[in-house]
């Protein structure tokens, strides 16, 4: 016992002392998809059969997360040579080099006396033969998927140098029933489609949910009082309230980055204008004043500017203005109509829906309108939402005469994937990283 402790200690020392001479193991998020990093994620060890089961499940979710990013290729467990049996024994790097694993992840689930589990993870650069930063957490046993997402974010951050996005949720609109009498309900799920649950009933049609930065509040549109109205939904209390008792209809809401305001469209008499409302004082400020349709507002992450769409030029185009409504300027000049601008959480890009020659696309451009890139195209692609690290965009896609489904695409445009949902689904909104 003492001997093994001593061995573990000197082993740990060896790693602490290891010089950082060798170049850091890195996946480039811009080009990693061309040559995904082979990574070995070993089923996490467990002190008893139940813990081993959880360990296998956690490793499976981590592998799936990393694969979906397209930056990593999870090596098939059948190819593993070394059988990891203890956390504190150094891996035989040669065994992992042979199967070309550039990174190795091992972990252990330890049941605690209070019914919780603790999770410890070690991450190795195989060819550099060094350990990268380890990760530990503890949680309730039924929260193992969350643990898998946290570990995935840790691995992603260590190997890409960017924030992860796996420990996040999606709020969206679940669609059922015939197209002429569609039932639309708010639904929440994990970023990978797991753990779905309904937030609203089938009595009123709801559209366009969006997260507050706190992740505990959403804003959305509901027809429950007849006309479309912006609502707030507190996920802690399940309390819903109308944003304001305006004449006409209110729609297209989004929170400000600090969560103190909601920017939205108010149409009192057939003219849609953009307003922002202070959630404490409930004072509203008019930001546009034009007979055209002005809608779809979205704040820059620093709160200083707002992008929106307007047809004041004769067709839908994207504009940027200061947060007080001044300095309105058109930024989209490509072919077709541009709609639903959404500012990236990194601030560097604006995602949009483009409609051109009877097809719909998701694309991105810089906030000055330059660098436009089209990422997808189909019969109907609409409503982009950003992963919190600004690398992946989720949206909904409808085939001709078919129901809507959720899809994601990364900024390379080459990693297009459907997100599994039990019903048809539209209007996704990606949460910030969970607290």
């Amino acid at each position, binding site marked *: 016992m003492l001997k093994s402790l001593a061995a573990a200690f000197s082993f740990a020392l060896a790693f602490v002392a290891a010089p950082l001479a060798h170049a850091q193991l890195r996946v480039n998020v811009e080009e990693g998809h061309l040559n995904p990093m082979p990574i070995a994620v070993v089923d996490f060890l467990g002190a008893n059969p139940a813990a081993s089961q959880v360990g296998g499940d956690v490793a499976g979710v981590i592998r799936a997360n990393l694969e979906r990013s397209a930056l990593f290729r999870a090596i098939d467990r059948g190819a593993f040579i070394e059988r990891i049996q203890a956390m504190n024994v150094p891996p035989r790097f040669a065994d992992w080099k042979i199967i070309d694993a550039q990174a190795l992840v091992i972990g252990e689930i330890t049941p605690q006396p209070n019914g919780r589990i603790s999770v410890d993870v070690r991450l190795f650069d195989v060819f550099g033969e060094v350990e990268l930063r380890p990760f530990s957490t503890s949680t309730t046993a039924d929260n193992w998927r969350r643990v898998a997402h946290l570990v995935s974010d840790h691995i992603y951050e260590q190997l890409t140098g960017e924030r992860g996005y796996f420990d996040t949720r999606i709020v969206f609109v679940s669609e059922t029933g*015939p*197209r*002429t009498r*569609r039932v*639309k309900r708010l639904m929440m799920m994990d970023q990978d489609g797991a753990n779905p649950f309904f937030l609203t009933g089938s009595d009123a*049609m709801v*559209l*366009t949910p969006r997260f507050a930065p706190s992740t505990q509040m959403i804003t959305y549109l509901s027809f429950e009082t*007849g*006309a*479309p109205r912006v609502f707030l939904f507190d996920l802690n209390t399940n309390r819903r309230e109308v944003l304001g008792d305006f004449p*006409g*209809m209110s*729609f*297209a809401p989004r929170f400000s980055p600090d969560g103190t305001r909601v920017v939205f*469209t108010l*149409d009192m*008499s*057939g*003219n*849609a204008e953009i307003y922002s409302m202070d959630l404490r004082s409930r004072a509203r400020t008019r930001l546009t004043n034009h007979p055209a*349709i002005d*809608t*779809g507002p979205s704040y820059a992450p620093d709160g200083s500017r707002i992008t929106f*769409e307007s*047809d004041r030029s004769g*067709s*839908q185009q994207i504009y940027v203005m200061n947060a007080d409504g001044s300095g309105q300027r058109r930024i989209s000049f490509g072919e077709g109509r541009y*709609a*639903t601008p959404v500012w990236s959480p990194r601030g560097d890009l604006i995602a949009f*829906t483009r*409609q051109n020659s*009877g097809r719909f696309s998701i694309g991105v451009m810089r906030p000055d309108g330059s660098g436009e890139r089209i990422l997808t195209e189909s*019969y*109907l692609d*609409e*409503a982009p939402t950003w992963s919190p690290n600004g690398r992946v965009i989720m949206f909904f896609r*409808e085939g*001709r*005469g078919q129901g809507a489904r959720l899809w994601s695409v990364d900024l390379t445009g080459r990693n297009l994937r459907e997100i599994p949902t039990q019903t048809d689904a539209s*209007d996704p909104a990606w949460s910030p990283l969970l607290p």
Partner: protein
Amino acid sequence: MRRALVAFSAVAALAACASRPDPTPTTTPTTPPPAERPQGPVAGSIEDFRVSVGDRIFYGYDRYDLTPEARQVLERQAAWLRQYPNVRILIAGNCDERGTREYNLALGARRAAAARDYLASLGVAANRMETVSYGKERPLDPRSNEEAWSVNRNAHTQIVSGAVS
């Protein structure tokens, strides 16, 4: 017109052939049939408005201006509404699926407002009319083709109260 009538009677004849012969009524109806009344819906009823006047007008792609046909229907609606001054209406603007959701909510509101404003110009009091937009959320025709889209771009005048029942 004559061709339409011929077609109609052909359809009616087909329908008659297809359906089984009417069974002899075994119970006497509790209310006598309104034999003295002319055929068609009751004057001043919701059905009367829908059938005799027309409750829906249609728009061009991404348009909210009123076509000559739409104006004719609205003129009939206005005349009918002047005749039944207790009737209150809700005008719902609708769009086809070939646009983004929030833009279509705004476009539907414009369509409803265009219909309301024309009715108001024809003497229908503003306080009898409300508008709403359903954007692209409530298609009349579920198909994805030009024919369906042209039908789904409409303003639908619904009677809320005050009609003869």
